[in-house]
């Protein structure tokens, strides 16, 4: 950043008021637990393969939400534009991948 913008600087400071480590520790533990569940489902053996895949996907999606929301600060105020851009990107990429794969391999 090259320009000094005092007004927006102070706004940023207000937005990122330190909120203490507790919540981040909880989220970190939760992330580790999610990872352990995913590992256990595969490592334990005997788990139905289809069930394991679905479980892994669910764990992955939860993990993404935790990472984005807490570590990337998307849950905080003032992050509407990144959220819009990410959702837009997911939507466009998802549409393109699904359609192209459908035509190339199954149609």
């Amino acid at each position, binding site marked *: 950043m090259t320009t*000094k913008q005092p007004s927006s600087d102070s706004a940023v400071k207000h937005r990122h008021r330190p909120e203490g480590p507790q919540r981040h520790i909880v989220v970190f533990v939760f992330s580790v637990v999610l990872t352990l569940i995913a590992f256990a489902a595969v490592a334990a053996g005997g788990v139905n393969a289809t069930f394991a895949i679905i479980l892994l996907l669910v764990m992955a999606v939860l993990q993404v939400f935790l990472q984005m929301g807490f570590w990337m600060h998307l849950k905080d105020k003032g992050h509407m534009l990144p959220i819009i851009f990410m959702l837009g*990107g997911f939507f466009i990429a998802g549409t393109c991948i699904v359609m192209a794969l459908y035509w190339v391999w199954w149609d």
Partner: protein
Amino acid sequence: MAHAAQSLQPSQPLQPGHSAKRHTGLMDWITTVDHKKIAILYLWAGGLFFGIGGLEAILIRIQLIKPMNTFLDAQTFNELITMHGTTMIFLGVMPVIFALMNAVIPLQIGARDVAFPFLNSLGFWTFLFGGLLLNLSWVMGGAPDAGWTAYTPLSSTGYSPSHGVDFYTIGLQIAGLGTLIGGINFLATIITMRAPGMSFMRMPMFAWATFITSAIILFAFPAVTVGLVLLTFDRILDANFFNVAGGGNPVLWQHIFWIFGHPEVYILILPAFGIISEVIPTFSRKRLFGYSSMVFATILIAFLGFMVWAHHMFTTGLGPVANALFSVSTMLIAVPTGIKIFNWLFTMWGGQVRFTTPNLFAAGFIPTFTMGGVTGVMLASAPADFQFHDTYFVVAHFHYVIVGGLVLGLFAGLHYWWPKMFGRMLSESLGKWTFWTFIIGFHLTFFVQHFLGLMGMQRRVFTYLPNQQFDTLNLVSTVGAFLMGVGMIIFLVNVFLTSRRPADAPEDPWEDGRTLEWTIPSPPPEYNFKQTPLVRGLDAFWKEKMAGHKAMTPAEPIGPIHMPSATILPFLMSVGIFIAGLGFMFSRDEFSSSIMSFLFNNYIVTALGLLITFGSMLMRSLFDDHGWHIEPEELEGR
């Protein structure tokens, strides 16, 4: 490599006559991170490639001037059409778009530079070295010859065994890196660096167009990046992504290419829409009609632009349901585009219209682009497309939207902002000559191609038989192409003559400027705004003028201005990527000299290039560069 400026700490008290190292001459251009200088670099480099692409077009038209012509052979013709399309789109018009964005966007939003000046420089140099790599193919064993779309399997090693297509994949990969960097930079700039008071809905339309264009770049370029990587792997490392014999699928390339390629045409046209939306209100002395509908039309076009790629592939056998869906989504784009056309007309209606050169180009843009849009809707109809596909009707259509739309828009923008970029007004009379020769030449060249296509002349054929009623129309088309060339030459003469006149353009040379760039000197000082202006409405400068003020209200007291340091690292990074690309391309070749074989076949050249690039990145990471300050005394002393 390390700079004197790097040792500068912001806390260090600075004497007037700052200690930042100043480069001069060539070194200044190579190391600059100033958006205004990078804009000029983009303009010259883009202009050079535009000239090369234009010469290629002239050669193509000479070959097609009469039936069974032997001016060029088929191979050269294929190379020329491939390079004409690729050069014009990626290396000609996109850099000129970036030139105008760089020159104007920070000024329009009241900022002192872009968000990431270092990246801005890196984006330019990667583009330039990518473009140079692609054009090196002419002297290094033959240019790419598989069309600008490089459809597989034609572009696979089976049908294109020479290195031509490798130059295409690796050159575009490197140039595309620059575009992606530029797009991200403008997104960050527009989101974070607007002047106080400039909400999103007070942004000038060109800033909006740049914002949306950058978003499309962000989403579309990764697709072509992936596609080019896959094609490179197929060609150099014997992968099988598009190879049927190895279980691959050639149609996959078409999907990937057009998932990028269709948004790409909106990357090209939206900035032109933005330019026209600046020029027409200025020379109509009226605010833009339907500003908010313009904004939403732009967003809608960008969104729909991603949902229509398969209309390039109607004839590949997607099936009637898919063809119908993509027909409808394609026709939908005509709605927001139509909104824009009518808004421009309503802006002119009742205004005090002055036909200066920029406004002539803008006024010429509207009907010309509309004609291209109408043939677009015709092509969107899948059953009709089975007739039009791969004929000159398609060639006429996309030249109407790209040349009749984008290039006229760029000419409007260049004439409009030239005094702001260079401090000199271009000659109005020569500008009008440029307009009339160019637009008459344009319609002569491409209007007749609609009929050539409908009569069955296929695109990409290097010659045709006599007595199929193609002869006269092709002659007319070639004459038109020469007239367009004359228009370009008049423009170059205009630029040359103008450069020899004193730089005496006032701050607001068109006298009816509406936006912030017209509140500062032409050309602006390196810090742009001595004090960041306070924006009190759409068309901020016009609003102050109407309130009887001569200048903007400042939003801050005069203080030291923080400036980024000049650096050669972006240049070195790009040189490294260029060397690595060349090394990788020839890594499987057999050389007559054993030293060459050793260097290339063991990836030593590639490693050397990457070493330069990553070494420069390491330098950038290890040595903090805090930039330097311009002190208030110095600002006042001017």
